């Protein structure tokens, strides 16, 4: 019998300390496999965010920098411009990328910096204890909106891919999910493409990954999978929003665009 899968060389061989069911582990594996398969691990620099994945530097088997809150794309810009031969990726959550780091995200996309951004959207602040994030859904409970998010008090959630799709500099934007094995495979394809774009010098690539946070949603991992399909995907339809070749638009999956 042959072993079908193995621990990717892009990840350090140690147990992940995320909560049971957390999507970070899945995306870590995908990134680790992409670094191995594309043969770029030796020249890759990753940027760990502030959030649950602040310890990403312990897991990715490449050079890592842990940046100030939300500043991943700014740090990536500096590294990429001073060392263009490096492959630079920024790994960020929704609180990091869509809240405090929104300016860095938008402007690095507008400048079309040749970097890869992996954006984990779990609609809540994970590390700090389940506070409302910019991506928290209307009606979703969080510790800072215990009766559910309301438009009147908290405004509308931000769809990052749709927002960045307005910018000509954003060359590759795709939203994927990790709630089924098939979607995990699609997410890997998207993340691999985002790294390939950087190798080819195509410009700013961002892959948004819908991820579950059972601990802070107050659900079991299995209930969380249902939450993604029933609540998150209608708000955050999956699909490709921009590719380097064609501008906007492409089929979306899961609800109204």
């Amino acid at each position: 019998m042959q072993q079908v899968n193995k621990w990717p060389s892009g990840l350090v061989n140690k147990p992940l300390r995320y909560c049971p069911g957390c999507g970070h582990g899945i995306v870590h594996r995908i990134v680790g496999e992409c670094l191995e398969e594309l043969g770029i691990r030796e020249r890759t620099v990753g940027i760990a965010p502030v959030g649950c994945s602040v310890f990403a530097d312990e897991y990715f088997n490449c050079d890592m920098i842990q940046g100030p809150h939300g500043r991943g794309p700014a740090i990536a810009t500096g590294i990429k411009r001073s060392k263009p031969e490096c492959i630079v990726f920024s790994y960020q959550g929704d609180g990091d990328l869509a809240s405090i780091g929104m300016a860095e995200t938008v402007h690095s996309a507008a400048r079309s910096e040749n970097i890869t951004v992996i954006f984990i959207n779990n609609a809540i602040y994970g590390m700090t204890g389940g506070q409302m994030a910019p991506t928290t859904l209307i009606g979703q409970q969080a510790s800072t909106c215990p009766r559910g998010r309301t438009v009147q008090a908290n405004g509308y959630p931000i769809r990052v891919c749709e927002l960045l799709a307005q910018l000509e500099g954003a060359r590759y934007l795709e939203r994927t999910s990790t709630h089924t094995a098939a979607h995990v495979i699609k997410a890997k394809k998207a993340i691999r493409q985002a790294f390939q774009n950087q190798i080819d010098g195509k410009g700013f690539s961002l892959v948004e990954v819908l991820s579950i946070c059972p601990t802070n949603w107050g659900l079991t991992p299995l209930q969380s999978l249902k939450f993604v399909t029933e609540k998150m995907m209608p708000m955050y339809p999956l699909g490709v929003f921009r590719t380097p070749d064609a501008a906007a638009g492409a089929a979306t999956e899961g609800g109204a665009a």
Partner: protein
Amino acid sequence: MPEIKVDEKLCKGCELCTTACPKQCIAMSDQFSVTGYYPAKLAKQDCCTGCGLCAQICPDLAITVFK
């Protein structure tokens, strides 16, 4: 026969693999692991096809597939 091996030190008992298995071969153990979770295990004999979907969705890289 194809089979999976679950590393009980890595598995946190999230049960995501049970949803991914197209043949429902995976169930949760009723014995605590050393880390304090009920780990996944291959519950049926001659059931696994080695498709590897459980390993795709496992967030803890606990599943190794043999085919």
